[in-house]
């Protein structure tokens, strides 16, 4: 029954929303003040698309009934850690060990700490760190940690837990049943935090997301992986790794062959190339690359094609060295500068390769220099993926948040996912604003990276509905830009008297108010019994974080710049509140208050009209209420459970 009303409200919201926005674009724009009227109508259009995607999500809310777990399913439980306190890791590991369904428990310690290893051994828990292959190669953070562990274990299914997510004993028994459908690759369960007070000042719980939104995505077979508290099918992940590997190798081989031919053609212009031996060898290698390209196009074996080219090149290099055509010093330096032996940081090998190939094609080489650069490029792309620690990377490494990209690729390959709506692990949320902001920034950056690198709207293999479900989540992360406009518009009216619309007339009210009312009703009905206000506040109030995420992710994807995690200012070093963390928001709040006063004065002296003032004052009041959550957040001193208060009292009494 509820679902029926949800659908009625979705239809009404979309109809009334389109009615309002169409009128805004066609009839209401104040062209004289286009610099604010266009951004405002664009922001409103953004919000309408956002709510329409939300409507589509909740259209198909799926309530699943768990199936009995297959008793013979083998499971590895992975607890990922990097620098969390040993006690926290141990608590989680012991709870994981106590899970009832038979399984092996592993601590994946990316910090390679002796202390953790000793604790693991003492309690009979598996302990894994990166193999030697990872030395001096891109580590790919958590995705790399999991990919490394995948190669060292053999369970049919994997349960992934962050170090702070203490599992319930029935976490496997209640979820493994979904895998009896052979196409299910992923079961995600909610992330819930126990160290959060009822009023949730930092907006840590995500009840709307781990509820109607994931259930709705599940209805479209698009429930996605959120990094922890999820089960994955090994076969699906490995298949993903294999397909991705073949694709990457093929692209690399194509590019390298093309670049090799260019380098050789350039080398032919050098004086040494007049020598018949040199000319012959260059011809031979160019012939080999040309043959290889034809064979590739015909779907030939990648490994054999590159192996043959490599042999021809090696032979030619030996011949040249033997006959004393030495490489120019400058060429050697250039080859070194191409940095093909695996970079650091987060760059895709593909990007490094592109860069090297670019350089290679724009240089005049000596013959031997050209051949050696061809060798270097062939090595870099070659089948064994020298630049990577392991050739097969099942978990996606294109983003700092490996989860969303991985599940998107799984869906694109035809696998299915399930969302199991029952809290089966209890986690710990950040207890201070600074950590919370850093975490939100990271999630947002990761999501935007995926949007820019593998936009779901253009991914083959997924249904249109699945693409939209992924896109919906990414779309919400663009809200920072709209928020700025929503704060600016009323300030501009109240202080300068400039309206972004022709006039605030009946036309405006009859279109806007019904839309707003059904929109709010839709949220109220879908989120029945769920506190959603905190989430709404933060989606606007954290606008600097969302904008920064978009700009840094764009710079990273398009220009290969690092994301720069360390830029969050240090706060609360000696317990004082971190006001500097929310400086932009404080400035906005001050401006809103000033606008309020100026607006009332302008009204009193007859410069602004009453209806316009009323609407904008209400708007400012709403903005201030939204932003007020941050005051609470800055003042928040961390979670104080009852036991801790008692301990505190005892210590002080003694």
């Amino acid at each position, binding site marked *: 029954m509820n679902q029926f009303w949800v659908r009625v409200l979705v239809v009404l919201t979309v109809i009334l929303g389109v009615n309002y926005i169409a009128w805004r674009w066609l009839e209401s724009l104040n062209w004289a003040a286009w610099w604010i009227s266009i951004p405002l109508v664009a922001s409103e259009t953004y919000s309408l698309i956002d709510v329409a995607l939300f409507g589509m999500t909740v259209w198909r809310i799926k309530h699943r009934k768990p199936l009995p777990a297959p008793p013979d399913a083998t499971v590895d439980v992975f607890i990922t850690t990097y620098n969390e306190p040993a006690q926290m890791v141990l608590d989680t590991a012991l709870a994981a060990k106590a899970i009832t369904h038979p399984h092996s428990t592993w601590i994946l310690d990316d910090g390679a700490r002796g202390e953790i290893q000793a604790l693991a051994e003492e309690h009979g828990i598996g302990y894994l760190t990166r193999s030697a292959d990872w030395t001096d190669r891109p580590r790919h953070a958590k995705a790399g940690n999991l990919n490394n562990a995948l190669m060292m274990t053999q*369970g049919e299914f994997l349960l992934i837990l962050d170090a702070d997510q203490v599992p319930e004993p029935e976490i496997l028994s209640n979820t493994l049943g979904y895998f009896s459908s052979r196409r299910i690759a992923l079961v995600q369960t909610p992330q819930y935090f126990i160290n959060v007070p009822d009023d949730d000042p930092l907006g840590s719980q995500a009840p709307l997301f781990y509820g109607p939104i994931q259930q709705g995505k599940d209805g479209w077979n698009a429930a996605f992986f959120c990094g922890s508290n999820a089960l994955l099918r090994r*076969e699906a992940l*490995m298949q993903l790794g294999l397909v991705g590997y*073949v694709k990457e190798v093929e692209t690399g081989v194509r590019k390298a062959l093309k670049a090799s031919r260019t380098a050789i053609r350039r080398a032919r212009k050098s004086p040494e190339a007049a020598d018949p031996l040199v000319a012959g060898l260059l011809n031979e290698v160019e012939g080999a690359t040309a043959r290889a390209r034809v064979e590739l196009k015909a779907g030939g074996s*990648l*490994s*054999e094609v590159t192996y043959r080219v490599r042999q021809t090149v090696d032979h030619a290099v030996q011949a040249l060295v033997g006959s004393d055509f030495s490489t120019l010093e400058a060429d050697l330096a250039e080859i070194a500068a191409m940095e093909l032996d695996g970079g650091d940081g987060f760059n895709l090998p593909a990007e490094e390769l592109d860069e090297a190939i670019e350089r290679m094609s724009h240089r005049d080489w000596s013959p031997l220099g050209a051949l050696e650069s061809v060798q270097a490029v062939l090595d870099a792309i070659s*089948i*064994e993926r020298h630049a990577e620690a392991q*050739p097969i990377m099942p978990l996606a490494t294109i983003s700092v948040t490996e989860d969303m990209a991985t599940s998107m690729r799984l869906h694109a390959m035809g696998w299915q996912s399930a969302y199991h709506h029952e809290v089966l692990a209890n986690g710990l949320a950040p207890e201070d604003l600074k950590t919370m902001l850093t975490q939100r920034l990271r999630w947002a950056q990761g999501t935007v990276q995926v949007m820019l690198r593998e936009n779901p709207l253009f991914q083959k293999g997924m249904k249109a509905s699945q693409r939209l479900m992924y896109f919906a989540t990414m779309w919400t992360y663009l809200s920072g830009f709209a928020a700025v406009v929503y704060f600016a518009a009323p300030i501009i009216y109240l202080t300068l008297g400039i309206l972004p619309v022709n006039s605030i007339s009946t036309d405006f009210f009859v279109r806007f108010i019904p839309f707003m009312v059904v929109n709010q009703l839709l949220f109220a009905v879908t989120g029945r019994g769920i506190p959603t206000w905190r989430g709404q506040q933060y989606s606007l109030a954290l606008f600097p974080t969302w904008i920064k995420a978009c700009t840094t992710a764009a710079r990273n994807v398009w220009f290969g710049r690092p994301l720069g995690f360390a830029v969050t200012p240090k706060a609360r070093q000696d317990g004082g509140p971190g006001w500097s963390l929310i400086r932009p928001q404080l400035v906005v709040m001050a401006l809103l208050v000033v606008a309020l006063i100026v607006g009332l004065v302008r009204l009193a002296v007859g410069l602004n009209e009453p209806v316009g003032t009323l609407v904008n004052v209400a708007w400012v009041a709403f903005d201030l209420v939204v932003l007020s959550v941050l005051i609470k957040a800055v003042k928040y001193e961390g979670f104080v459970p009852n036991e801790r208060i008692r301990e505190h009292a005892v210590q002080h009494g003694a």
Partner: protein
Amino acid sequence: MQFSTEHRTGYTEVLGNGRLNMVAAPKLRDVVSAVVAAGKTRIVINLAGTSFIDSSGLGALIGCLKLARQAGGDLRIACVQPQVQMVLELTSMHRVLTPHPTAEGAFSDD
């Protein structure tokens, strides 16, 4: 899954009997890394007795290919059964590891 190793002229043959799945995959890696460590880098994996392979098994083959290539040699596969052929094509892996009809012929092109 049982593995055996035979040194032949020009290559080393590794025979696998049984199911090359997630349980057997690490074993294959161990066998091949021992062969490479002994200085034999031209390797043919004879899959005549391998009735089933999964993605973990294929992953292990790629890992072995990397070992052989890094040591300056190569790894080829031969005598694949229908299920193995199907999985190879499903993942496009046949373009990286192209099956040869016989173990003797796997290195015949060089």
